[in-house]
């Protein structure tokens, strides 16, 4: 005679050590609860598929919040609805492990609706077991997104009214609209034959997970005698009579052999390799030797202003980048606030030795004004004794200040007419700045161009070099 030995599957912890209190040999679930049955199917499958030591299980918030009491796996307990997010990260961190997201219907289809949708859509390599019991069991029987039309719950005391409460959500149908999921099936636990089918689905999902075949989703129609206020036997009948017609069982998606195998990269951690991959060389930075810079230009606070599209931000960044190579401390700050509107742009650049304080050039030692509104707006702010460099091609008024040095340079004209490319205005600016301040040598700037404009064609780099020279020469020749 064949002897059946009843024992706990190895997927369960032998003694439920995490469970407080004396009863460490039984679960916390109510008699007749579907959670218990599904737990057993999963635990058996983990044992049979040799996954007990290869699995991470995420417990949700809901009656299965304590799933970690039972499963002899690595365990997380996640915030309400967020098990798919936690599972995503656990799976990315441990790409060769089976990661299970175990969730109720409130958890998965209400508060965590978008989490499951997006994890499914990313095709995360996880197996989701979704317990649809048409109710919030844990919190005492409130409406779930899966609650049936007319079903009485503590928050639908007159029955679920689809006009005000919406319709029951069918998650298998929803998720099988997505491209990524590998396997989607709905099963039920209401009688032995259906439990056998559920068992097969659980195994298939876990086998797929073991083979890293992406997103597995098993919806399980499950009893909640306490929430439904029925005895266990009636609960099973209720599933059959009420839930089955609304939630058709079956396979909604099975990619079979077409399922993609999830591959994740191995992180580069070795210090030298990290720098190499990021293009950081271990060689010491060597500063350009500085030329003679007059005292007034040793600590620069510069405002660059003009139309959007005049290369204002690029001019500022280029000033900072070049100064950096002479070992100065530099800062660049784009404009904030109302000036950003209306097509004008400005940025602040500081170049000095020692710690830079306020980043915004409120009282600049130099104003680089590329259009008339900028000159009008910022001329008054220039520090007494400071410097104004303005674009005389576009600015047809004379500056009013007499207590500052003024350099009128046809920036746009040089770029457009002389060099035939209006986009090199920033480089003309740099050349003019170099000539005025003596801070940069033209040769140095030219050496830096390939680095400043990484990936640009040689012709553009050459043109930029010409622009720097032209700006420089104009100032040298005219002032």
């Amino acid at each position, binding site marked *: 005679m064949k002897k059946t030995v009843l024992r706990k599957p190895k997927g369960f912890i032998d003694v439920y050590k995490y469970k*407080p209190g004396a009863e460490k040999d039984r679960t916390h679930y109510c008699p007749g609860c579907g959670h218990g049955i599904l737990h057993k199917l999963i635990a058996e499958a983990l044992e049979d598929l040799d996954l007990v*030591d*290869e699995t*991470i299980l*995420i417990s949700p918030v809901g009656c299965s*919040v*304590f799933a*970690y009491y039972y499963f002899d*796996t*690595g*365990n*997380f*307990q*996640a*915030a309400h609805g*967020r098990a798919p*997010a*936690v*599972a*995503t*990260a*656990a799976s*990315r*961190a*441990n790409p060769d*492990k*089976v990661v299970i997201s175990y969730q109720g219907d409130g958890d998965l289809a209400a508060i965590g609706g*978008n*989490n499951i949708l*997006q994890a499914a859509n990313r095709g995360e390599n996880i197996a989701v077991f979704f317990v649809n019991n048409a109710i919030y069991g844990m919190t005492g029987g409130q409406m779930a997104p899966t609650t049936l039309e007319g079903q009485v719950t503590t928050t639908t005391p007159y029955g679920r009214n689809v006009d005000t409460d919406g319709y029951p959500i069918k998650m298998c149908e929803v998720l099988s609209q997505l491209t990524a999921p590998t396997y989607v099936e709905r099963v039920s636990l209401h009688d032995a034959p259906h439990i056998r089918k559920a068992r097969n689905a659980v195994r298939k999902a876990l086998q797929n997970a073991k083979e890293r075949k992406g997103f597995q989703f098993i919806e399980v129609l499950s009893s909640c005698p306490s929430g439904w206020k029925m005895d266990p036997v009636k609960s099973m009948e209720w599933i059959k009579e009420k839930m089955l017609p609304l939630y058709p069982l079956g396979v909604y998606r099975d990619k079979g052999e077409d399922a993609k195998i999830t591959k*994740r*990269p191995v*992180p*580069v*951690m070795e*210090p030298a390799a*990290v*720098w190499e*991959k*990021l293009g*950081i*060389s*271990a*060689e010491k*930075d060597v500063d350009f030797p500085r030329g003679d810079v007059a005292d007034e230009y040793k600590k620069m606070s510069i405002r660059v202003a003009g139309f959007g599209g005049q290369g204002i931000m690029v001019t500022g*960044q280029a000033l*900072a*980048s070049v100064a*950096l190579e002479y070992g100065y*401390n*530099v*800062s660049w700050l*784009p404009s*904030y606030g109302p000036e950003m509107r209306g097509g004008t742009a400005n940025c602040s650049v500081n170049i000095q030795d020692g*710690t830079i*304080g*306020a*980043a*915004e050039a*409120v009282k600049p030692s130099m104003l680089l004004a590329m259009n008339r509104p900028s000159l009008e707006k910022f001329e008054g702010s220039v520090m007494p004794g400071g410097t104004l460099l303005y674009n005389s091609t576009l600015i047809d008024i004379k500056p009013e200040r007499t207590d500052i040095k003024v350099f009128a340079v046809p920036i746009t004209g040089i770029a457009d007419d002389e060099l035939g490319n209006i986009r090199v205005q920033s480089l003309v600016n740099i050349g003019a700045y170099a000539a005025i301040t003596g801070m940069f040598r033209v040769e140095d700037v030219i050496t830096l161009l390939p680095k400043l404009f990484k990936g640009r064609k040689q012709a553009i780099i050459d043109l930029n070099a010409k622009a720097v020279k032209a700006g420089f020469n104009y100032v040298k020749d005219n002032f």
Partner: protein
Amino acid sequence: MARMLMKGNYAAVYGAAMAGCTAYYGYPITPASEVAESAAALFPKLGRTFVQAESEVSAINMVYGAAGSGQRVMTGSSGPGISLKMEGISYCAGAALPCVIVDIMRGGPGLGNIGPEQSDYNQVVKGGGHGNYRNIVLAPNCCQEMCDYTMLAFELADKYRTPVFVLTDGVIGQMMESVTIPEPVKELPDKSDYAVFGTPLNKNLVNSIYIDHDDLEWWNMELLKKYQVIEENEVMFEEYMMDDAEIVVIGYGSVSRVLRTAVDNARANGVKLGLFRPITLFPFPGKEIAALPARGVKHILTVELSTGQMVDDVNLALSGVIKSDLYFRLGGNVPSADEITDKISELYGEVK
């Protein structure tokens, strides 16, 4: 060539990469989007994980999953997104998981605007989510510190198994400065005693539930002790021209830079103004601030881009011996150095 011109938002991610952070989970929001963008650019080059999550709520729960898996992990956001992360941060604190959160503050409340403010101070420094927990909060004021303190944040997070914030505003996030990239860490801490790897040896549990009342009280006391140790050991601050200062301005982040310029200007006029800059906001340098009156400081002016959030901590520290005045700008406006010295003249009648 470890020296580069880069935005604060980028510098934070370089710091993270050098700290051995292997996963970034985030959701875009101005002015913090470049944190996510730079992680998206750098992390794949290093075979590390970057995921644009569906929301900040997801992002922080992914952080929880990664931290529980033993990874050094980071997320970044700003005001509204930080508000959304609060539940998840509470879970991280409750489960004693280390993680780093970069907050590039913007104007609020509500959608507010994308200008710089410091109005996340209370929600970040005081805990923010539910339960008795604190975050370690580092407040960089330049791009180099964005890099260095993000790196430090990972060390502190692991040392205390707790969430650590790098808190700054849109000015520091979006400005560019020269940053020297530090060397990558050689070794990462062993986390096998608590992390879940899904191996036979690491069948650990990551959890914040203590159903039994006594157990939860015990756990809260453990957390409290941890925060006390942090307060004892991790306070950071910077002083500028404080030796003979009679008036002191207190400010953190971008404000502290304006204050530094104000101090320089005031000193040029013979005013004995000094700057006290908290670098850690939790732990707050309260003891050092409490000691200021005894050092000869007569007046204290706290300057914030919020309507008086940090000043509460300053005054708590001063416990009525003297009271800090407050000056603030809001909505994306930033005070100028002249505004500060004008305010000081107005209040204390000493500055030209």
